[in-house]
């Protein structure tokens, strides 16, 4: 049992604040870890990186090694790394970088360092923040409440399929595709089979979490020419298990639900803005009055909520 949420605003605004409220209301669904994917106004060039390191004694050395991989691909840091650290063993960092010549090739090289330092998200617009603990705790540590953006995702995790580790938290970045993130509530039962197939095609997985598969699987389908809507539809019969997941890009948020209708999804849409969550009480923290909710509780449902021109995209 996990809790997921999505939020879309009409214009850049307090999406971080809203995502924290949506996840705080669902903390009972999973207090092991909490994560957020926030989409802000895209950079014209360069990327924002969010990541984690696992040895605080080696922060400077590991970041320098990491930077060297970037230089080998014709890019560099364009901002000083901002380090967030507390008493836990890991630390988190945020920085901006210039464009590598080939993003996917650089990510593959940078992932060789994943035992020490790991990219959590890479995007012109996307930033993924995740850590162990509840929504308020993670927000206070990483200042999620203050983040401005147009849309985003949230996740409260009850660890079932893999360990309680900060990097096994959601959302997952669809590495190595920039600006794609997913959150998932459920269990993928053919995870190992699907992951092995994608690994043979060259994809890299950094955790044992089944949800990481969905991010890469959907992005791989889109790379092969499917639209996001087609990929979401295909996922329902191609991925085995019980699930509701949401996948975000700079253009909006897509969702898909399994064939057995086991995992709920509740949506309120008002004045062109949208909040989606596992539980109705969560979306009511954003839309306080008694507006109508839409329950996506049937089997095999999928769709896209666009940012800006949502009714057209849906």
């Amino acid at each position, binding site marked *: 049992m996990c809790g997921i949420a999505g939020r879309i605003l009409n214009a850049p605004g307090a999406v971080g604040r809203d995502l924290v409220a949506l996840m705080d209301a669902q903390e009972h669904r999973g207090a092991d870890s909490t994560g957020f994917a926030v989409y802000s106004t895209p950079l014209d060039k360069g990327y924002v990186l969010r990541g984690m390191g696992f040895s605080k004694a080696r922060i400077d050395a590991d970041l320098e090694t990491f930077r060297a991989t970037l230089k080998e691909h014709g890019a560099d840091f364009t901002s000083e790394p901002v380090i967030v650290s507390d008493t836990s063993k890991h630390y988190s960092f945020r920085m901006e970088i210039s464009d590598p010549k080939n993003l996917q090739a650089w990510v593959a090289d940078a992932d060789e360092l994943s035992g020490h330092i790991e990219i959590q998200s890479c995007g012109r617009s996307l930033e993924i923040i995740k850590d162990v603990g509840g929504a308020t705790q993670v927000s206070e540590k990483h200042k999620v409440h203050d983040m401005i953006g147009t849309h985003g995702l949230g996740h409260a995790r009850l660890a079932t399929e893999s360990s309680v580790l900060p990097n096994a938290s959601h959302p997952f970045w669809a590495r190595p595709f920039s600006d794609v993130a997913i959150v998932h509530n459920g269990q993928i039962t053919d995870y190992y089979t699907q992951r092995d197939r994608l690994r043979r095609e060259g994809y890299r997985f950094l955790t044992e979490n089944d949800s990481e598969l969905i991010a890469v699987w959907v992005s791989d389908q889109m790379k092969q020419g499917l639209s996001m809507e087609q990929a979401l539809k295909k996922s329902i019969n191609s991925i085995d298990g019980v699930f509701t997941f949401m996948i975000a890009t700079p253009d909006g948020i897509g969702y898909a639900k399994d064939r057995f209708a086991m995992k709920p999804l509740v949506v309120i849409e008002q004045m062109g803005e949208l909040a989606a969550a596992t*539980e109705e*009480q969560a979306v009511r923290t954003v839309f306080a009055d008694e507006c109508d909710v839409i329950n996506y509780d*049937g089997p095999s449902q999928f769709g896209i909520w666009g940012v800006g021109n949502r009714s057209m995209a849906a």
Partner: protein
Amino acid sequence: MSEIVIEVGKRHIREINEEIQEASKTGKPIRIVNTLSRHNLGVGLPDGADLTFEGSVGYYCGGLNTGSKLTIERNCGWAVGEGMAKGHITVGGRAGMSCGAAMIGGTIHVKGDTGPRCGVAMKGGNIVVEGKIGYQSGFMAHSGKIIALGGAGESCADALWEGEVWVAGPVESLGVDVNVIEPTAEEVAEVDAILEPLGLVDTSRDWRKMVSGQRLWYFEARDASAWLMI
């Protein structure tokens, strides 16, 4: 008779339910306000309380009810009236997944639609839904009646046991091991007797009564062919 008003808001649910229990001893109607779709409201109510929830409620509202009357003015989340033994629950809007799960008695009346698996594993009582019942409703219902006036979703009455699913309106698809039979006039009269107090009798309805095919029920390992046909 004056009513007692209880505020939900962000208060602790246990504190609210204890207040409801105390208020029910007075015999006065109780109005629960600012419900915010919170979970577990009005669980374990004794016989005789009369509650109105102003707004929507979350999961398990009215669960384990032993004889109280609950009116939820708008929607409810998962498993309204789960395990209830007696009493009456009215949902003014729609009900989420597993409405009346494992209930053993009483009546749940939903004015809108329900989510998937309405009446899952119910062992008695009646669920009346003015709208459509969701995917796989009636799943493994042991006893009691699910009466849907606005149709049913996919996989209706899947793996039903001795329960009955009555549907007026379109059925998207049937589940495994379901028999659709023509009800007798006597059986229709029994259903109308359940609908009559709710003001929902309509003699022009074209009923489909669904019962178990019993192939799963009497599974015989030495003759698996019946099971394999499903």
